[in-house]
Each structure stands twice: as C-alpha cells, then as structure tokens.
C-alpha cells in the first residue's frame, strides 16, 4: 500500500536542537503509517548530527547536535525525505503473541475493571485477549508500547493514587489504553495481568521485544504456564555467554 494521508505535514523547530514533524492532531491508523514511514527513512538515512528520533501518535521529533548540523540544513534534509514519503514501502507488521497470566496477585484491579464496566472478570479477560493491537510507538520508558485497538468496553480510569512499585511485565489499563510495563516503576494503571516475557533487555539486539508497527495479541495462560515460561526463559539466559 503506497497511499499516504494527503495533507502536508507541518514542520516546526521545537527548540534550537530539535524539529517536530506533525502529521495530524488525532490518533488514527493512517497517520500512524506516515509516522512509521518517516521514522524508518530517518533511521535509515543516519544523517550526521541527528541524535535521536522520537516517533509518537501523530508526530516525529528529531533531535540534533546544532554544532554538527545547522537547523536550516536539517530542515532541507527533512523536506527531501518528506517528498519521498509516499514511495516508502512499509514492511509487513510482525505478529507478536504475548502470553499473559490474568490470575491472583498479578491482577489486583481485574475485578474493579469489570465492575466499572458491568462485566465479570472472565469477560474482561476475554475482551482484552480477543483484540489485535497495533504498537503505535515505544516511549515513556525503554520498550514501553503505546498500543492502539483496545475495546472501549473495558476502558477504566487510572488509579487515584499511583502504586509506588509496579512489577516488570505487568499488564494494565489506563483510560482507553492498554500497555505492559517493561521495567519496575511507579505507576497508576489498573493492573489486570502479567507476562513472563522480558520487554526490555539491553543485552539483546534489538533491546526491545516490540517494535513500532507490530501487531500484538495477548494470550491467556495459567499460573503454572507462567512459571514454566519464566523457568525456560531463565535457562535460555543462563545458557548464553554474556559476550555472545
């Protein structure tokens, strides 16, 4: 598919060392595809002086070292890339299955998400695990996926008081979003399960399990399966030489 949204993207200097490209002001799949196209060609171009690419729902922020590349030069570079945007063919999205145990202390807020929406806990699990989600982008913390595609029937506001420590792998809901915490951190999302997978590992290449554009499904597993996954994961890690 080569089509791209017709409106011209906006370019503004958000500082003397960053430039913000805006494709729209709402969340949509079409806009996401343009964000992904630009991110891919920017990563591919490896322009000297460009430090980081920050894709999001409808924008791409490019940070640069103004000692190496002037803002005018970068603007020209970007205009050239944007003209090619329509010709960028996106790779097919990867299908990623994320096993989730929706049981016991992994799911302290499952009952609340249900009662908030007039559903039983099993119905919440069924709805959460039946949708296909798109990774719009990774942001906020290493490997954290911003997922689109959650059913509104399980949307639930954040906790009034965030938890001080959320375990890595925790699966949560905040408003109309769902996500997985890659690392232990404070957090205000309603927790409904946990995955044994590591979403972020700096020793792995690439260091994140998910990539922008991936299609993600959550697959319910039992506590026993969760423990088995974890044990298998650990033995794989221990079998690997750290230098490899």
């Amino acid at each position, binding site marked *: 598919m080569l089509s791209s949204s017709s409106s011209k993207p906006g370019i*503004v*200097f*958000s*500082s*003397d*060392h*960053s430039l*913000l490209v805006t494709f729209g*002001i*709402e*969340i949509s799949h079409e806009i996401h595809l343009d964000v992904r196209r630009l*991110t891919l060609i920017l*990563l591919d171009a490896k322009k000297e002086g460009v*430090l*980081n*690419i*920050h*894709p*999001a*729902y*409808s*924008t*791409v*922020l490019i*940070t640069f070292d*103004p*000692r190496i590349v*002037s*803002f005018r030069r970068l603007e020209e570079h970007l205009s050239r890339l944007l003209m090619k945007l329509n010709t960028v063919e996106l790779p097919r999205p990867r299908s990623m299955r994320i096993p989730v145990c929706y049981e016991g202390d992994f799911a302290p807020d499952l009952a609340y998400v249900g009662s908030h929406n007039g559903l039983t806990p099993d119905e919440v699990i069924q709805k959460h695990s039946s949708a296909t989600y798109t990774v719009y*982008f*990774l*942001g*906020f*913390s*290493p*490997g*954290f996926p*911003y997922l689109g595609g959650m059913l509104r029937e399980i949307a639930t506001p954040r906790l009034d008081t965030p938890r001080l420590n959320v375990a890595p792998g925790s699966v949560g809901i905040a408003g109309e979003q769902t996500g997985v915490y*890659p*690392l232990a*951190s404070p957090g205000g999302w309603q927790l409904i399960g946990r995955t044994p997978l590591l979403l*972020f590992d*700096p020793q792995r290449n*690439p*260091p*994140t399990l998910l990539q*922008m554009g991936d299609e993600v499904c959550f697959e319910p597993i039992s506590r026993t399966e969760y423990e088995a996954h974890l044990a298998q994961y650990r033995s794989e890690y221990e079998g690997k030489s750290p230098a490899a």
Partner: protein
Amino acid sequence: MPHIRVISPGFLTTVQDLGRFGYAHLGISAAGAADAVSFRLGNLLVGNLENTPSLEMSLVGAEVEFEEASIVALAGAGMQPIIDGQAVPMWETIMISPGQVLKCGAAVAGVRSYLCIRGGIHVPPVLGSAATHLATGLGGFSGRALRRGDIVTVQSLPVSDSFDPLRLNQNATDRLLARDLLRVTAGPQENLFTDIALEQFYTSSYLVTKDSDRMGLRLEGPAVARKDSSFETLTEGVSLGAVQITHSGHPIILFVDHQTTGGYPKIANVIAADMHRVGQLRSGDRVTFRRATLEEARALLVEQESFIYQHSFAQA
C-alpha cells in the same frame, strides 16, 4: 587496569559521558552529563577526549583513594577538594601519587562537579554509552550511583604517557558561574497559552523547588494559564530543556534523564548554549526566562564553542 576505591560516595555520584543517543525510538533516554560544558572542560584539562566517561558528583562530592599515580581534574561547582589535608584547586590538572586520597566537600555554589581522570572511568558500555540512567538502572557502574566500598576501574594508559598540566583562565570560570538567566526559544505549543500568561512567563522569576533532579526541574512561581485548559495535547516526543506547563500551571524543565515522550504542552525550550546552566541549578535558586530567536541561539552556541576551545586554558 588501575582502580579507585570509593571511601564515601558523597550525595549522588554516577558515571556519565555525553549521552546515549540513537535509541529514543525504543523509549531509551539519552542521560549523560548534566553540565556538559564542565564535563568537557574537565576532560580537556587531563588530555582526554571530551566524551571520556567521568564521575558526576552532586551537592556533596566523593572521597576516593587512588591505587596508582593519576592525573585528574575537578570541573564544575566548587567542592573544596583536599588531598592529604592540603586544599587543591578546581579547574586545574592535579597530579596524584599512589595511595593518595582526594576528598571533596559540599558544593559552595551550583550543584555538580566532574572528577575527570586521565584515561577515563572504565565501565562496560551499554548501547554504546557509559552514561548512567538511574530510573531504569541502565549503564554506568551497574546501573546505579556509587556506594561506599565500590572499586571503580580506570582505563590504563601506556607507561610513556605524559601530560603538561593546564588550568582554566579565571574569566572562564567566572563566566561558567552565571545561571540565573535561561535563554529559550518558543516551544511547539506556545500558542496554547494566553498573551497575559506569556508576558508573565517572561517577566517573572521562578523558584527551583526541591523536587528537582536529573529527570526534570520543577519550578514555582506565577501559574501560567492556558487559553483552553480542557484541551489535551497528544503524547509526543520531547527534547532536552523543554519547558512543560503542568495542569496546575507550573513549569517543569525536562532534563538529561527525561522520558522520551510526554503529554504536557511546552511553552518554551532552553537553548543548547544554556543547557549547562540548568545542570548547576539547585533548589532555592531563582531563574528568569528570556526569549531568543533561533539565529541568536545559534550565535550564542558558536561563541560558547570557541570559548571552550580557544580562550580557556593556560599552562598551570
């Protein structure tokens, strides 16, 4: 390789370089030295490449014992350094004998000082960088701040290595102390704020609160009002030095350990040439913001770079 032993880590001491770049699209923060100008000057004072991993000490400096003869320099906030009971200067190459202990005290003004050692601190690079990102435990010395008893490895140099001592000119150190003014360019959501709010933002002085760290500096002062407070901005990428306005109207300056994306509107952004000043702001300091154009920001950066390379050093 030679080692240094941490007798006391001070308040917060981490290994830093100039940052971990190229991974923001995976959600990974750049981190890196909070006052990159002092960091670079410190490395130049010991003849290192300017991106050589060094120790960033905050508020109260560290006490370390050197196993071998070393060439070091302290750059940044004055921390009253002493060796064997004798005061030694900041901003100057110091020769250390085997077994000597360097002891730093509290920062007299400013926050951060860099202990740069010829050869550099040796830690395994994580995603191409030695920088420590504390919130995610990434990089540096096991992803954490130094503790009492830690043994830190120094990159050894050939036996034939020699280096002529240098010191920074007095006028250069004076210049680096100014930090009550931050020059900014317009932020991407400046248009969401009322004219009165903008006028207020650029004429008021803001207090740096104690809730300030490497992730961000929270400021207190007249609340900055938005035209339509119900309008939510979509989460988007954020750049170093962005001045976000929270729902309560208070500014937060996003700093070196900041998250890669954020949802608050950004009224302004500190210019690259003033970023090192942010790294020396401590709670209780007051700052004002002055609007600059992109061209002015560029001219200030060019001038600062020539200051770093051409006019700063004298033979010690």
